[in-house]
């Protein structure tokens, strides 16, 4: 029996290596591709239509890619990460309604700007806010990392920073905040879809949008500027614009949300369900996201178990026999660093720094990040399990002539594993829920799937509930499974 378990572990490890290698190889030959990053919660510049990202920025880059024989790949990530993605070479261009600022110019190059835009203030219709000064001391919402954020931070006060504009607007509508500072074009869209809010006539500040390209890619920058100039001359730019905005700059074809006071609560809920999940097959975001979450969690759990087992054995062997001094020291550093820093930070470091210059799939990055993170906790759980096994068990094994390793594998580890199964199960549940920060590196996991629906429907309630329920169901199933496993192991000794 113990031998079989051992071989299983080996097989899992090998499978991991294979996964790692193929994932690396897969992404190798990406010549002829143009990778654009954006935060697709910013209509009419970038937003989801079904599973496709469209909008002025997206259509523009699509056209640029086409004219230069490049295959376009669009990746959706948090706005505060798009410039970093270009800087680290994760992407070729960031097109996300990015405002030209002096600070940003120091980090990346901007293409020629393609639109002048205003930062405007959105308030509830009954609000007494009339301009920037009367916002002072009120709660002001912004999208994290935008120029609206910078303006409010520098000139007024600390704002409440949201991951996307839609969340900020949703908070405004529900009365959690008093005003939102946002770019004028998406602000128009939000106001068109939400009764009860309006845009103040006075713009906060005027600015320009441009696309961001790494400073080390002057040839790419030249290509963009050249093609954009051509598109302006031959009317393509205007045509793209006309797809989304009328000649007054007001958004086209936005289904305004009608007053629904006459409907009952259940009818409204049914409508909301229809809009959030059925229309445009939006449920796909949840299902696809769910699969990504499960894939990442399952692989990370296996990886964490492998790492955790190895580290725990090294540390216990060092404590019990005094061997493996160097290895033990390395393990100690690993545990200290991983347990001493938040998992989101680790994920971002692994994505932008460790895998910064290599092109690997983001799912793999997430698996590595969560696997390495979980490994540290699993290691300490298993080590505590090993220490809890009566020392007489090891002595009995050694007194029979069995080696330390054999006794460990055949006698100590099976008992330790059984002892810590509840704690391990708990760690897996924590891990599953922790993967919800994957959106930081533009992975469309379950949480991110809910975010996308929210950004399209401007409805916070149902998508969040659906995401929460999905996690809950998975966790409950997992707990039941672990309980079964525990019971079947318990049968052995009673």
């Amino acid at each position, binding site marked *: 029996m113990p031998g079989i378990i051992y071989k299983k572990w080996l097989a899992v490890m090998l499978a991991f290596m294979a996964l790692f290698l193929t994932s690396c190889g897969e992404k190798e030959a990406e010549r002829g591709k143009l990778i654009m990053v954006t935060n697709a919660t910013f209509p009419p510049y970038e937003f989801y239509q079904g599973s496709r990202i469209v909008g002025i920025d997206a259509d523009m880059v699509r056209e640029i890619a086409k004219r230069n024989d490049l295959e376009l790949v669009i990746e959706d990530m948090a706005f505060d990460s798009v410039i970093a993605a270009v800087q680290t070479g994760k992407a070729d261009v960031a097109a996300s309604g990015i405002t030209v600022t002096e600070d940003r110019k120091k980090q990346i190059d901007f293409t020629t700007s393609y639109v002048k835009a205003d930062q405007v203030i959105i308030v509830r219709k009954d609000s007494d806010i009339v301009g920037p000064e009367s916002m002072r001391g009120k709660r002001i919402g912004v999208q994290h990392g935008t120029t609206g954020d910078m303006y409010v931070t520098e000139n007024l006060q600390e704002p409440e920073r949201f991951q996307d504009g839609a969340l900020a607007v949703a908070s405004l509508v529900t009365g959690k905040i008093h005003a939102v500072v946002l770019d004028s074009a998406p602000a128009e869209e939000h106001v068109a879809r939400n009764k009860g809010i309006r845009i103040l006539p006075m713009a906060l500040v005027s600015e320009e949008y441009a696309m961001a390209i790494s400073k080390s890619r002057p040839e790419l920058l030249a290509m963009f500027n050249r093609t954009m100039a051509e598109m302006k001359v031959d009317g393509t730019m205007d045509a793209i614009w006309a797809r989304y905005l009328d000649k007054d700059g007001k958004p086209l074809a936005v289904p305004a949300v009608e007053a629904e006071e006459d409907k009952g609560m259940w009818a409204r809920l049914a409508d909301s369900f229809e809009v959030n999940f059925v229309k445009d097959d939006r449920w796909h975001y949840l299902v696809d996201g769910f699969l990504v979450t499960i894939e990442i969690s399952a692989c990370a759990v296996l990886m964490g178990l492998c790492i955790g087992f190895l580290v725990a054995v090294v540390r216990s062997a060092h404590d019990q026999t005094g061997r493996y001094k160097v290895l033990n020291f390395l393990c100690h550093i690993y545990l200290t660093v991983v347990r001493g820093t938040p998992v989101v930070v680790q994920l971002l470091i692994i994505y932008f720094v460790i895998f910064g210059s290599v092109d690997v799939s983001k799912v793999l990055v997430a698996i590595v990040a969560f696997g390495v993170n979980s490994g540290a906790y699993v290691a300490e759980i298993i080590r505590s399990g090993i220490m809890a096994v*009566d020392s*007489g068990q090891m*002595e*009995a094994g050694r*007194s*029979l002539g*069995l080696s330390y390793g054999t006794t460990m594998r*055949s*006698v100590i580890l099976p008992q330790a594993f059984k002892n810590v199964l509840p704690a391990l199960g708990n760690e897996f549940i924590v891990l599953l829920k922790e993967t919800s920060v994957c959106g930081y590196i533009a992975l469309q996991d379950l949480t991110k799937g809910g975010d996308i629906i929210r950004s399209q429907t401007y409805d916070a309630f149902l998508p969040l509930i659906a995401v929460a329920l999905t996690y809950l169901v998975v966790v409950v199933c997992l707990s039941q499974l672990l309980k079964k496993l525990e019971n079947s192991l318990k049968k052995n000794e*009673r």
Partner: protein
Amino acid sequence: MNADNILEVRELVKEFGDHRVIDGVSVGVKKGEVVFLLGPSGAGKSTVMRCMNFLETPTGGEVLFHGQPVDRSENGLNHYRSKVGMVFQHFNLFANLSILDNITLAPVKCGLMSRTEAETQALHLLHRIGLRDKAKAYPSQLSGGQKQRVAIVRALAMNPEVLLFDEPTSALDPEMVGEVENLMRELARDGMTMLVVSHDTDFAMELADRIVFLADGKLVVDAPPAVIAASDNPRIRDFFSIR
């Protein structure tokens, strides 16, 4: 000391930190001999025994097997220990393994025999102690006396040349002491070489070929039971009359 000792310690010293627990003890056991190690609690009996198979590393002195110093390399120790069985006060049966697997694990892993051979032998041994029907049971399902008899049989399965017993009956309920002592009597009758730490003076007087008396980490006397009984050493008289 005698050259035909199978197992012998010479001038054994053991210190835990500054605390000298064993102070120059020499003991040996000849083939087929049963030697009892007696003495007050804390005298160092267990420590001497644990040093004999290196569960504790001796601070000084020598451990000889067939007159040769034991090879203390990892492999050397494993090989040596496979020939010197040990029975513990608290049985130390492998809690995660069935009774059968407890007995077969070491012979199979050490390459002494195939799994089928080991199982045949194990069932034979279990039959001998009347526990054949417990082969598939787990240690937690056995009584203390049954556990200790299985532990003895587990050590026997390696075909050891010497068996070390560290207070094999001290953790047992009184009504279970007999079944374990009977098995030990049987082994002694069959010529097994045994070194036994015990506090049961009557059992020692009955079974021992020699009794070694330890106090404060030093050897006080090493003699046959009859000589011990006639001893005028007040410490020994005291010890034996108290019990």
